[in-house]
C-alpha cells in the first residue's frame, strides 16, 4: 500500500512538470508568429525595366531580370581582398560585391536624367521638389540628414544619397549599402 501511494505522488509531480511546461509553451509559441518577409531596404527600393530590387538583394536574379549589361568595369582592391563589379546599363550603373561566395547588389547609381526613382526623383530636378516627394514616405524608420548639399536617406542597411549643387539642382542620385564608417 505504501509503495503505491509513493508512486502515485511521484507521477503526480511528473505530470505537474509537464503541464507547467505546456502552459508556458503556449505563450512562447504565440510570440513566434512569422512576419511576412519585408524587404530589408523598405521604401528605398528601385525599379528598372519593370524589375523592382534594392540594396543587398542577390545580384544574379536581378541582373537576369533587367537584361544584358552594356559593359563591365572591375575595380579590384589591392592584393585581391575583394573586387567591386560595376555593370553599365542604359542610364544606370549597378555595383555588385561577392560576400562568402554569393554576389549581392551593393550600389545603384543613376547616370542621367532619363530615369527616376520610384518616388519620382531624377537628376536635374530641383532639390526642394525632390525633398517634398521623399517626405510623402511616412515611415519613421527612414531617417534623413544633410551635409553640405548631400541629402542622405537611410532605412536599415540601405542608404539613398541625393547631391545638389549651389543653385539647388540635383547632380547625382545613388543607393549604397551602409558600411561601418558611414
Amino acid at each position, binding site marked *: 500500500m505504501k*509503495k503505491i*501511494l509513493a*508512486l502515485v505522488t511521484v507521477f503526480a509531480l511528473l505530470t*505537474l*512538470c509537464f503541464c*507547467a511546461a505546456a502552459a*508556458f509553451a503556449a505563450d*512562447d*509559441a504565440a510570440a513566434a508568429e512569422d512576419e511576412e518577409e519585408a524587404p530589408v531596404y523598405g521604401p528605398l527600393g528601385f525599379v528598372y525595366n519593370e524589375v523592382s530590387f534594392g540594396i543587398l538583394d542577390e545580384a544574379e536574379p536581378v541582373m537576369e531580370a533587367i537584361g544584358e549589361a552594356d559593359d563591365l568595369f572591375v575595380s579590384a582592391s589591392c592584393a585581391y581582398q575583394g573586387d567591386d563589379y560595376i555593370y553599365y546599363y542604359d542610364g544606370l550603373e549597378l555595383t555588385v560585391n561577392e560576400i562568402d561566395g554569393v554576389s549581392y547588389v551593393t550600389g545603384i547609381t543613376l547616370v542621367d536624367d532619363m530615369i527616376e526613382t520610384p518616388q519620382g526623383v531624377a537628376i536635374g530636378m530641383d532639390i526642394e521638389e525632390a525633398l517634398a516627394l521623399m517626405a510623402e514616405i511616412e515611415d519613421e524608420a527612414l531617417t534623413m540628414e544633410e551635409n553640405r548639399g548631400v541629402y542622405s536617406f537611410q532605412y536599415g542597411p540601405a542608404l539613398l544619397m541625393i547631391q545638389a549643387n549651389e543653385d539647388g539642382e540635383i547632380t547625382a542620385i545613388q543607393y549604397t549599402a551602409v558600411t561601418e564608417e558611414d
Partner: protein
Amino acid sequence: MLFTSYRFIAFLALLFLVYYLIPKRFQWLLLLAADVLFYACAGWKGLVFLCVTVLVSWLAGMLMGRSFKEQKSFLKSPEGKALPREERKVWKKKRESYRKFVLTLALLADLGILAALKYTNFFISNVNSLFSAELAGVDWVLPMGISFYTFQTVSYLIDVYWEKVEAENNLLRVALFTSFFPLLVQGPISRFGDLKETLYAEHSFDFKGFSFGMQRILWGYFKKLVVADRLLPAVKALCGAPDQYNGAFALIGALFYAAELYADFTGGIDITIGVAQVLGIEVKENFIRPYFSRNIAEYWRRWHISMGTWFKDYVFFPMSAAPRLMKLSKKIRTRWDGFGRKMPVYLSTLVTWFLTGLWHGAAWNFVVWGLLNAVIILIAEEFKPLSTRFREKFPRLTGSFGYRVFEILRTFLIMCSLRMLDCYRNVPVSFKAFGSVFTAGKWREAFSGALLELGLSVWDYRIAGLGVLLMFLVSVLQERHGSVRELLWKKPALPYVVFPVLALLVLCFGAYGVGYDASQFIYNQF
C-alpha cells in the same frame, strides 16, 4: 577578462612573479589587489555591488561573532553560572534570536541584490504573460560572477551562525574570501572553513606545487581551446535550429553539447584550481569524472560538487529538519505512515532542485530542468528496494563489467536529454527535440556529410575527437590511479616531455585567435 585572453595570461604571469617576490606577509594583500584589478576589468559598476556584499557579510559576521563571544564569556562568568537553568535558557534564546535577526537581514541584503539584478526581468515577463500587463523590462548589467560570490558569502554567514566557523573581523580578509578572482568566473563555491587555512597563510615557493599548478592550468586550456571551443560552432548550429536539426541531429547535438560543456566547464575549473595551486591555495575539486557515475544521485555527487553540497547544506537539510515540517509529517503519518515519513524528503528535494534550476538562469527551462532532476532522483529512490532485490537475484549479472557500463551509459544518456533543456533554452522546443530523436529519424542524412555544414571541417572533428579521447584516457587513469600528475612526477623526465608537447598541441590546435572568436565560458553567463 576572459580566461582565454592574452591579457589574463599576462595578468597571471605578473601575479605569480610578484607573489613570490614580495615579503610573504603581504601575499594575501597582493591577492586582494589582484581581485580588484581583475574585477575592475569587467566593469566598475559591478564592483559597487561586490563591495556592498562584502561590507554586509563582514558586518553581519562580526556582529554574530561578538554575540557568540559575549554569550560564552557570560555563561562562564560567575553570575552566568549562578542563573537557574530556566533563565539561562531564556537568556540564550534572546541571544539566539538576535543573531537570527542579524543573519536574516544580511541574507536579505545579499540575496536581495542577486534576485533584483538577475530575476527582475524574469519576474516582469511572467507577470506580463500571466496578467497580460505591459510592464517594461529592465536592462541591468549582471555583475560578473554575482551568482557565485553571493552564494559563497551566504555560506560564510550561515556557517558563522551555525558556529561551524569562526567569524572573521578583518574586513580585507572577508573581501579577499568573497572576491578571490579565480573563483569569480565560474566557482567552485568554496567554504570559508576550507579556504581559510591556505588563503591567508604565507606561502614560500614550492617547485612541485608550482609545476602541478601550471600543469593543471595547461590541461584546462587544452580542454577549453582544443575541444570545447572547437565544438562550439557545431553545438550552436545544432541547438540554434531545432526544427531543421531534429531527429538524429538532436541526439548528436546533445552528445556534442555534453562533450563541449564538460570540456568547457571542467577546463575552466582546472584553470581555477591550477591558478590557486600555484599560489599555494587549496580549492576543493568541483568535478570527479561525473560521466562515470552509475546513477543520477551519484552523478550529482560528482558534477559541480560545490553547488550540489551548497544546496544540500543550506537548503535541503535545514528544510527537511525544520520543526514545522516535522510536525506536519507526524500529522500525515497518523493516516499514511509511509508517505508521512517520506514527505519531508520529497518536498525539500523538490524545493532544492527548483532553486538549483532557478539559480542556473532566470528562465523556465532551467526550472523545469531542476524539477525533472528532482523527479528522477526521487523515482530512483523509490525503486531502490526494487533494484536491491534485483541485484540480489542476479548478482553475477549486476556485478559484471558489462552491467556497470550499461549503468554508466544509462546515466549519461539521461543527463544528456535533461541537458537539452539547457541547450535549446526553451521548454516545448526541448521536449519536441527529445521526442524527435525517436520519431524523426534522419540517421542516414546525419552521417552523409550534413555535419560538415555546421562550421566544422573534417579536421575539426578529428581534432575534437582525439581531444575527447585523450580526456577519456586521462579520466580512466585518474579513476584507477588518482592524480595523473603524481604518476608523471615519479619519472623525472616524463613531465618535461609531456607538458611541452601538450603546450604545442594547445598552441597549434587550439580554436583561438582572429580565426575563431574567443567564446565565453558557458558558465559565466550566470
